């Protein structure tokens, strides 16, 4: 972690990207640039909500083809705090419904003169598809079960803030790994920064093949809890499951919900994250979610800082 707050007068030379499509292709250095910038934004805006006019005259388009509250709001607010204009396009139905393709929709929005498109879509690869077909910058705000880079980065920032560094920590991602874009972005980012990553959940949602990527695989939360520095509790994505991968929610909660009994067996300084929205009583009991180990609300605050950092890095350097 940098001891000095980053200078926000110019985008660092180490940042050369026009898009943020995934964490998998970022270097550890690039991740640190984003996190350090986020810290700088957080400190600059900590005591006031005054705007920082770094992106005045720029326009950010939210292109959300899947329901979202916090990510879309967070990106909008981040853009406005930087002085940029925002436009919102939401379509929960298929873009096919009016016969227009997803790419055409995006091109139409781009033609209104936007500098960056922030896209969420149920299909993996859609951010990549837009990056190839649009001239403006593209930020992936979640593509199916593939990646959700700003969520992964804000989770990592929340860990770094509390624990000082990532290297050497044991971080378990618990739950629906199969359908979680947040899990994938976390796995890449945490590994690049030197954490030991465990994926834990029912065997139908946690492929043993993660081991081939250097990730520890577990189906037994109780067995790994005592070793973990951080638990990141992922939401069960009922909407992405074509067949139910476990017998009942009740059984899932019995085996994998983070409750005070399990907390009692964890390290005293264990940090608990949950990228919202959370299913209270399924992945996490309310006492744990609202308890002192939980960083759930810090995650939301850090989300805003990370998104300001990403927008600034992507748009601030190529004016």
């Amino acid at each position, binding site marked *: 972690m940098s001891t000095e707050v980053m200078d926000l007068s110019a985008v660092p030379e180490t940042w050369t990207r026009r898009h943020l499509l995934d964490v998998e292709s970022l270097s550890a250095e690039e991740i640190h640039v984003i996190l350090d910038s986020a810290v700088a934004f957080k400190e600059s805006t900590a005591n006031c909500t005054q705007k920082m006019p770094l992106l005045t005259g720029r326009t950010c388009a939210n292109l959300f083809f899947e329901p979202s509250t916090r990510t879309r709001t967070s990106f909008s607010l981040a853009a406005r705090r930087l002085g940029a204009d925002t436009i919102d396009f939401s379509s929960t139905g298929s873009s096919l419904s009016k016969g227009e393709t997803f790419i055409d929709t995006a091109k139409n929005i781009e033609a209104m003169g936007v500098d960056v498109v922030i896209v969420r879509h149920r*299909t993996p690869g859609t951010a990549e598809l837009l990056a190839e077909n649009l001239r403006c910058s593209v930020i992936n705000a979640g593509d199916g*079960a593939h990646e959700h880079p700003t969520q992964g980065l804000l989770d990592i920032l929340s860990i770094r803030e509390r624990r000082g560094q990532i290297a050497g920590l044991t971080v378990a991602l618990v739950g629906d790994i199969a359908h979680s874009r947040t899990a994938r972005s976390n796995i890449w980012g945490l590994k690049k920064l030197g954490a030991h990553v465990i994926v834990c959940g029912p065997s139908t949602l946690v492929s043993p093949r993660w081991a081939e990527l250097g990730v520890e695989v577990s189906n037994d939360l109780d067995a790994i809890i005592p070793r973990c520095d951080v638990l990141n509790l992922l939401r069960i994505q009922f909407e992405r499951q074509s067949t139910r991968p476990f017998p009942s929610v009740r059984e899932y909660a019995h085996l994998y919900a983070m409750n005070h009994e399990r907390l009692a067996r964890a390290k005293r300084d264990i940090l608990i994250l949950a990228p919202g929205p959370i299913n209270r009583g399924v992945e996490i009991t309310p006492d744990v979610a609202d308890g002192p180990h939980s960083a759930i609300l810090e995650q939301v605050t850090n989300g805003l800082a990370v998104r300001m950092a990403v927008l600034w890095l992507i748009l601030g350097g190529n004016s």
Partner: protein
Amino acid sequence: MNVRANRPLLIEGGRVIDPSQGMDRITNLLVEDGRIVAYDAISTGDQEVLDASDKIVAPGLIDMHVHLREPGREEDETIRTGTAAAVAGGFTSIACIPNTEPPIDTQATVEFIRHQAVLADQCNVFVVACVSKNREGKELAELGQLVQAGAVAFSDDGAPVYDAELMRRALEYCRMFDKPILNHAEVRELTQGGVMHEGLVSLVLGLPGMPSVAEDVMASRDIALADATGGRIHMMHVSSVGSVDLIRRAKGRGVRVTTEVCPHHFTLTDDSLRSFDSNFKMSPPLRSQKHVNACIAGLADGTIDVICTDHAPHALEKKMRELDQAPFGIVGLETALGLVVTRLIEPGHLDWPAALAKMTINPARILGINKGTLAIGADADITVIDPTVRWTVDPTKFRSKSRNTPFAGWKLQGRADSVIVGGRIKYQAPAEAAEQGRRPARAR
């Protein structure tokens, strides 16, 4: 250039490889009145002469798995454009698959296809008709009448014949006509929503997977049914370690099973999907390297009888979509031969006679058609191949109406130089393509 049917054509100095006769030698081949009439023929001066020196003279290539899309989806391909693409790829005969709109399940539709093919006047088109009425998988189509109309085989491809009882009856019934059932082996419950092979790459990309076991389970059922009924099953586009192995063992104990593989399944892996490009989306999906290796091993040991393309044209606007919205399939007619030469023959997996057998006499025998041979008296369907020419795949030059290929920009070796159908030259490679990167001609 068209040669008048009554003027003899002398194909001079080529290496004639005809697996149907076990022939591989340099000779002159004489064609007259649309038939092969003589070997070791001498120029008499009143013949049309085709110089085939440094070329391979093969029986006209056969692709037994082509989606011509007509009737119903003429925006993707027509019988005219599809057959034009076929001859440009070196094919003199193709079998078209009946998942058209309407599907080919009546005599009238079979006759429509055959008539359009005659009008297109490019290559021979053999019709594969539906196993079930309206391709719904519920009751048998009128297979006997379809045979009378000229159908050479039956398939519900696009979908498997799902009902085991229907498959059993189809196999039993077709014994009467000695026609094969071509099945797309896939257990749908296991591939529901899938867009790519289930493996490490799908795990990383978060894309829903289609596990290879979905193919293996259906292949196993079909082999058991063929064994029980004595019918002929032809497993379409095998792509998995499991199904190649099942077929190998079934053949070993005498089950009447044959199979085919597509060039993309012996050249590409699921790693290509990292680009999220829908031109890598097909069914069965591109699998991992061990499955590719199994396909190559199956070709080499004879388990896999046929190389086919599963030519599946889709208009650009359909493929330029989110990966889950884009349709499965790629075009293949104009790249298949180059891929066979570059990826099977040059690396030594197959020699020329073995490779050509899988594109000539083997599919002819499976379909029961009088093609795939250069025996005296046979139809003069001949593909003259330039085995050394190097060329770059340029989809904008395709004769197919669609451009959905994953091989754009690939540098390939070997392509059709001249294609003769019924004694008439239907295709000659453009001169610039033949000159590009060509090796010095061998002294004669």
